[in-house]
């Protein structure tokens, strides 16, 4: 039992999965000797050898595509895309092949691959290193889209993703990579891929979020608590498929909901959640659903990014609007 950061938990899960199952191979740019630009694969090549931890040439389309071929052959590739800003060349393979191989061949060939990528803002990174394109993947049938928000959830969800018989896109919030340490038991226990996590129980309002935004959301809940308001926080973690039941249950209890994400507002995963509420919780909604998200603009460069990312203040303002609504 050790105190580890989120990126170390990812590393633990990868090592665990590789020792458990010889079919698991890690590949990507700089995942070998370098151990990944964030050290997520640190030491894996030394320990498991260059046959199971492969440095690929610089080619995202092929990284995804060859992973499809490996997976169809019974391997369980865990491919790293260095940053989500560079995942776009892989989308063709994910949408047209990885997510369809099972359906296309009626189960004859399958595609148990995991595509890992660091994502999100707040680390003052250069252009293309701070985006949150999860909504694109959450729209793709046959795919799973997962985002952990703590070391233990990173460990359990990544293990589940690797063991899942279908393709999983797994985004890791860079801002949380080293933000906090947590006791994580390396016991190989996976977490479910279709359940939201209740980070905080509450009765007055539901705050739905995922990834690094859990920090601002937890801070907002603290502030509300000081004012005697009890906020429930759901970390969706799995954005495809969505744990709609958990959201409906919580909002059925609180009647008010604020959805928080870094991605641009329009067409973000928050829209699907709000839609499910408009469809299934109309009776229980005591206030309009609020979304606090990135603006519908291009993510600015570091000097202004804090004005782009949802702040605790913006979350609080939205929560107060929802709470004040009669």
């Amino acid at each position, binding site marked *: 039992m050790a105190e580890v950061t989120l990126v170390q938990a990812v590393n633990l899960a990868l090592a665990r999965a590789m020792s458990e199952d010889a079919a698991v*191979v890690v590949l990507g740019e700089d995942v070998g000797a370098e151990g990944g630009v964030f050290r997520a694969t640190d030491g894996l090549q030394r320990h498991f050898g260059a*046959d*199971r931890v492969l440095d*690929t*040439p610089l*080619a995202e*389309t*092929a990284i*995804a*595509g*060859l*992973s*499809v*071929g*490996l*997976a*169809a*052959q*019974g*391997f369980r*590739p865990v491919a790293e895309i260095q940053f989500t800003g560079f995942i776009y060349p892989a989308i*063709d*393979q994910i949408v*047209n*092949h990885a997510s369809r191989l*099972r*359906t*296309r*061949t*009626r*189960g*004859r*060939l*399958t595609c148990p691959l995991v595509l890992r990528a660091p994502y999100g803002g707040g680390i003052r990174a250069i252009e293309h290193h701070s985006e949150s394109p999860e909504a694109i993947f959450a729209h793709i*049938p*046959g795919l*799973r889209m997962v985002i952990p928000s703590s070391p233990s959830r990173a460990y359990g969800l990544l293990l589940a993703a690797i063991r*899942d*018989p*279908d393709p999983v896109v797994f985004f890791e919030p860079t801002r949380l990579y080293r933000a906090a340490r947590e006791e994580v038991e390396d016991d190989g226990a996976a977490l479910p891929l*279709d359940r939201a996590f209740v980070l905080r129980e509450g009765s007055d309002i539901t705050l739905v979020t995922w990834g690094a935004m859990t920090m601002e959301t937890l801070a907002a809940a603290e502030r509300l608590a000081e004012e005697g308001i009890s906020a429930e926080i759901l970390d969706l973690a799995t954005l495809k*498929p*969505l744990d*709609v*039941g958990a959201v409906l249950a919580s909002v059925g209890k609180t009647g008010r909901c604020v959805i928080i994400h870094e991605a641009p507002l329009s067409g973000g995963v928050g829209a699907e959640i709000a839609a499910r509420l408009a469809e299934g919780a109309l009776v229980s909604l005591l206030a309009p659903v609020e979304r606090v998200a990135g603006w519908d603009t291009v993510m600015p460069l570091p000097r202004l990014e804090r004005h782009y990312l949802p702040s605790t203040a913006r979350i609080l303002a939205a929560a107060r609007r929802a709470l004040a609504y009669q």
Partner: protein
Amino acid sequence: MSAETNETVSLEPRAEVSTVVARFEIRWSRFLDPTGKAIRPLPGLARDAAELKALYRGMVLARSFDAKAVALQRTGRLGTFPSALGQEAVAVGLAAAMHPDDVLLPSFREHGAQLWRGVSPFELFMFWGGDERGSDFAAAREDFPVCVPVATHAPHAVGVALAFKLRREARAAVCVFGDGATSKGDVAEALNIAGAWQLPAVFVINNNQWAISVPLAHQTAAETLAQKGIAAGIDSEQVDGNDIVAVREAVGRAVAKARSGGGPHLIEALTYRLGDHTTADDASRYRDDAEVSRRWAEEPIARLRQHLVAAGLWHKEDEERLLAEIAATIEAAAAKYLATPPQSPDTIFDFTYANPPEDLAEQRRAALAAAAE
């Protein structure tokens, strides 16, 4: 200080100020000329009458399947279909060069290869008829299904070949794509990685000179498509793709090399698309009929038949027997396809996930309800 002052005249690196650091050449091979005459000593395989007849049957089967598929489409009983008329030697020759445990990654015009590999004409009719079950092959279980997005299966071949290498299996992944596909980045990335990792992958360019309406000359300035492999540092060559002996020999060499750890290989097979791009296409809009007529003189089936006849290995009765046997096979497959009802609507939901979420179960119920009305 800009190049305005640049007085350089010569536009090539002048010999006296540069040295050659790398040299490459592309070789072309053919055994049977368009009349079926052997222009050089034939390889072993071509001295085996049984094999030659098998290759001939494979090509005739492929052409007959194509003809039936087109007929079914024309009468509204099959979807849009890409005939491989005139390209049979490429598909059949490469399939014949493969071992059963190799894996084929075809494009959408390799029916002849799929049939040779054991995919049934019934399955192919099902797929082109719009039924997923057509890709659930009973044989060649590891072969990839038809790949519609051009060139996207090239990286799959890299993954399959990597799987063989990691498992230390003496097997090869054989990937086929067209001339147009060579313009797509997927192919370049795949060739490069296959080279960097020395994978047991054989890439065959089915160069039929056209990408729908785009002639090869507009597709690239490369003198040959085989030289695409030079960029990846892999052995590359060109063969007469209408000479099945040449295709079979070259792919046989490449497969043997791949299986024995010799690394990847690229083969450009020069052939010609005698038909329209698909049943939805009308090539007369962009292609001169005279060109097509000329190319008929080089087509692969007559070429091998003439060779067999000249060698006294094939007679009128053999031809008649073969055509009858194949017609029966194809007709039976077509009849079975036409007699096969569509799957139940809720099968749309099967295989989306191995473990479908509750959500999807609800949608499945709704779909069944809607279908019931």
